[in-house]
C-alpha cells in the first residue's frame, strides 16, 4: 500500500481508531499493529509476506541464541546464520541477476558465451530496509549492545511496523523495540507535530517531487535529444525530486508513527545546506548513513587501522552503500564518487589547507551541491552510457535555451519547488527541525495549516508515481 493512495486514506484512520480503542493493553495494540502491517505489505504482494515472517523468525531465534550462548564460537555461528539468511535473501532477490548478467557480459569479452544465467524473479518491496533492520538487531546483540526481546510478537511488530516497513527510516531495535514493549501515550504536542509532519510530507511528495518528475523523466528518457542546459536543469530538478520524494516519505512515516505514540529518529535534516560531503551524509538518509557507519565502516576497522585502511574502508563503505540502492554499476559509481570525495575531505582535514580555507568556508555549500549533483547523474541515468553522455554534454558548457516542455508544468514546478526551498531555508535559518515544527502550535493553528496544505495539495498535486526508494 502506498502512503499516497486512496486506500491508505481509509486504512490509517481505521488503524488509528482501533489502535487507541485498545489502549488498555499494549500487547493487544501490538497484535493490531502486526495485522495492519502485514495487510499494508500484502496489499502490494501477499506472497512476499512469507519472506518477512521467515526473516523475523530466524532473527528472533538467532538473537536469542547469540545472547544465551556461552561460547564465542556458537555466538559467531548464530550471527552467521542471521547474516546468511538476510544477506542471502538480499543477494538472491536483488543482486543475483545483476551479477549473473555482469558475469555473462565479462565472459563474452573473452569469447566465451555462457547460457543465460538470470532468473525470473521480482524484487520484494522494502527488502533492503527490513533486512538491514533485522541485521542491526542480531549484530547489536552479538556486540552486547542490546538485549534480545523474549516476545516474538513484539519482534515481529518491530520488523513489520508499517510506517517504516517498505522505505525506512531504518529504525534500530534499541530505539523502537523498547517502545513496542511498553504502554504508549499520545502526547498533546505529538498530535500537532505528527499531523503537520504528515501534511508537509504529502506536500513534499505529491506536490513537489511528483510535479518535477515529469520534466526529469522526459529529459532522462532521451538525453541524446537534449542540450546541456536542459540536462543541467533536469539534473537540478532530480536532486530536488529525490530529496522531496524520500524526505516526504520519511516525514509521513515519522508523523504516522508519532500519531501511534512512537518516536522515530529524523531521517533528513536539510541536507543540501551542507558545507561538506561529510556533513551532507550526516543529514541525508541519516538512518542508512549511520547504519553503514556502525555496521560496515566500523566492522571493516573504521579509522583505527591507519590512514590507508581508513580511506579503503571509506571507499568500500560508499561503494557498498551505492550497491545497496540498486543492482546496477551506476549506483556503484555513484557510491564511488561519494567515497572518493569523502576521502579527499578526510585527507584535507589533516593538512593546513583546511584552516587556510576557513575564511571562504561558505564556498563549501555550492561545491558540495555540485558534487552531489554530478553524482546524481549516475544515480538517475538508466545506464552507464547515458550517464557518460550526460556528463560529456554538461562539460561542453554550452548555454543554450533549455527545453521548456509544457509551460504550465514548468511554471508549476518552479512555484512548488520555490515553496519547498523557502520552507527549508526557514527551517535552516531558524535552526528548527520538521519533527518539532508543530510542537507549540495550538489545535486551531494546526488544523488551519493542515487544511491549507490539503487545499494546496488538491490544487497542485501531480498524478501519483511510486516513491523512488520503493525500488531499493
Amino acid at each position, binding site marked *: 500500500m502506498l502512503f499516497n493512495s*486512496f486506500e491508505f486514506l481509509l486504512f490509517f484512520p481505521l488503524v488509528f481508531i482501533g489502535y*487507541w480503542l485498545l*489502549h488498555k493493553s499494549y500487547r493487544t495494540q501490538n497484535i493490531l499493529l502486526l495485522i495492519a502491517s502485514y495487510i499494508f505489505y500484502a496489499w502490494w504482494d501477499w506472497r512476499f509476506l512469507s519472506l518477512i515472517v521467515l526473516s523475523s523468525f530466524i532473527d528472533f531465534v538467532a538473537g536469542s541464541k547469540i545472547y544465551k550462548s556461552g561460547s564465542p564460537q556458537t555466538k559467531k555461528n548464530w550471527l552467521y546464520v542471521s547474516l546468511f539468511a538476510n544477506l542471502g535473501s538480499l543477494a538472491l532477490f536483488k543482486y543475483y541477476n545483476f551479477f549473473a548478467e555482469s558475469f555473462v557480459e565479462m565472459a563474452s569479452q573473452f569469447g566465451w558465451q555462457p547460457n543465460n544465467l538470470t532468473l525470473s524473479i521480482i524484487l520484494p518491496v522494502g527488502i533492503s530496509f527490513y533486512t538491514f533492520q533485522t541485521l542491526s538487531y542480531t549484530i547489536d546483540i552479538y556486540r552486547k549492545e542490546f538485549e534480545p526481546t523474549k516476545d516474538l510478537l513484539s519482534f515481529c511488530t518491530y520488523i513489520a511496523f508499517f510506517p517504516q516497513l517498505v522505505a525506512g527510516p531504518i529504525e534500530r531495535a534499541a530505539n523502537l523495540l523498547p517502545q513496542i514493549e511498553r504502554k504508549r*501515550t*499520545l502526547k*498533546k504536542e505529538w*498530535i*500537532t507535530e505528527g*499531523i503537520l509532519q504528515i501534511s508537509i510530507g504529502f506536500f513534499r511528495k505529491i506536490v513537489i517531487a511528483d510535479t518535477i518528475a515529469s520534466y526529469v523523466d522526459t529529459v532522462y528518457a532521451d538525453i*541524446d*535529444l537534449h*542540450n546541456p542546459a536542459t540536462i543541467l536543469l533536469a539534473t537540478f530538478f532530480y536532486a530536488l525530486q529525490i530529496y522531496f520524494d524520500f524526505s516526504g516519505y520519511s516525514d509521513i512515516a515519522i508523523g504516522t508513527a508519532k500519531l501511534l505514540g512512537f518516536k522515530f529518529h529524523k531521517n533528513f535534516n536539510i541536507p543540501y545546506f551542507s558545507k561538506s560531503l561529510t556533513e551532507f551524509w550526516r543529514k541525508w538518509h541519516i538512518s542508512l548513513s549511520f547504519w553503514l557507519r556502525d555496521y560496515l565502516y566500523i566492522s571493516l576497522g573504521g579509522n583505527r587501522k591507519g590512514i590507508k585502511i581508513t580511506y579503503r574502508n571509506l571507499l568500500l563503505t560508499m561503494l557498498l552503500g551505492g550497491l545497496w540502492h540498486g543492482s546496477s554499476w551506476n549506483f556503484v559509481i555513484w557510491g564511488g564518487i561519494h567515497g572518493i570525495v569523502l576521502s579527499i575531505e578526510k585527507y584535507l582535514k589533516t593538512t593546513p589547507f583546511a584552516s587556510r580555507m576557513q575564511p571562504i568556508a561558505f564556498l563549501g555549500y555550492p561545491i558540495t551541491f555540485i558534487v552531489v549533483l554530478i553524482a546524481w547523474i549516475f544515480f538517475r541515468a538508466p545506464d552507464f552510457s547515458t550517464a557518460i553522455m550526460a556528463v560529456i554534454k554538461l562539460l561542453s558548457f554550452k548555454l*543554450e*535555451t533549455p*527545453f521548456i516542455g509544457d*509551460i*504550465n*508544468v514548468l*511554471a*508549476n514546478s518552479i*512555484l512548488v519547488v520555490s515553496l519547498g526551498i523557502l520552507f527549508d531555508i526557514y527551517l535552516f535559518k531558524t535552526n528548527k527541525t520538521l519533527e518539532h515544527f508543530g510542537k507549540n502550535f495550538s*489545535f*486551531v493553528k*494546526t*488544523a*488551519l495549516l*493542515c*487544511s*491549507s496544505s*490539503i*487545499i494546496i495539495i*488538491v*490544487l*497542485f*498535486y*501531480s498524478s501519483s508515481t511510486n516513491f523512488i526508494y520503493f525500488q531499493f
Partner: protein
Amino acid sequence: MDKQTVKNVVSIFLMIIVFSYALDKVVFYTLNSVSDKVFTGQSMGKLNHFFKLKDSIDLVVIGSSRANHHIDVSKISENGFNAGTDGTKLAYAATLIKTLPKNKKQTVLLHISEKTAFSEDYDGEDIISLKSKYNRNEIIRKEIDALGKANKLHHIFYSLGYNGSVLGLLKNRFFPKYNYKSYDGFDPIYITSQQEKAFQMFLSRKTTDECPHSFNINPLYEQYLEQIKSFCDANNKQLILFTAPVYEDNCKDDNREFAKILDQYNFKYLDYSNLFKENSDLANWRDATHLSHKGAEIFTTKIVEDIYLNLAP
C-alpha cells in the same frame, strides 16, 4: 488514552475536516469567478471560449493537437472555431460534441486517429482535461462519471477541478497573451532551430513501426463513434471525420481497415495520413505527427478543397 486526549484528537480532526471543506468551497468559487473571465490559454481559456461560442458558430474543429495546429478554420468558415486541444483524444472530443446546441445546423470536423482506435489500452483518460467543469456542467459530469475517471475525492473537494491549472488561470486572467475576440482557435506552429535539429536527430535514428497483427477496434472508441454519430444525426450536425498527415506512414493496413469500419457506419471520412508522401520538405514539419505552419497551410488548402468539392451537402 484519557478523556482529554480523546477530546483533543476528535476536536483537531473535526476542525481539519470542517476547515478544509470550507476552505475548498471558498477556493472553488473564487477560482470559478476568475475562470469565467478567462478566454485565453490552451486548456481552460480555450475551453471557456468554446463554451462561449458553441451556440452561435457554424463550424467547429475538434480533436487533439493534430486538429489544433493543422486546421486554419478561417479558410473554411467565417464563423468557425478550432477547439482542438493538445493531448486530448476521442473521449474529450465526444463530450464537447455532446454539449453542442440541439437542432442548430453546424458542421463538426473531428480529428481521429487509427492508432488510438486500434489501441487496446485506450480508456478515455483524456476526458480528465474537462475536470474543471465537473461540478459546473451536467453533461461533462455524467461523461466523466460514466468512464469512472472522476477522482474519488472530487465530490468532497470541488477544487480538484482546478488541479494543475491555477497558475495558468491566474496568468491568463491578468496577463492574457492575445485578444480572444480575434482568435479562432487555430495555433500554427512556427518551428525553432532547436525543434528542427531535434526532428532531424529523431529521423536519423527512427525505427520502423510494425503493423498490428489484428485490427480490432477498441470497444470504448467504437462506443464513442456510435454516440457521436447518433447525436449528430439527431441534432442537425454534419459530421466529417479526418486523420491529419504523418511524416512517414509505415503501416497502411491500419488506415485501410479503419476506413472500412468507418464506412460501415456511414461516416464521412477523409484520411490524409499520406498527404505529404511525395513532398519530403522538412520545413513542413515540426515532428513526425505535427505540421509546421507551412505544412498546415498546405493541409488546410487541401481539406477545404475536399470539403467543398466532395462533401458539401
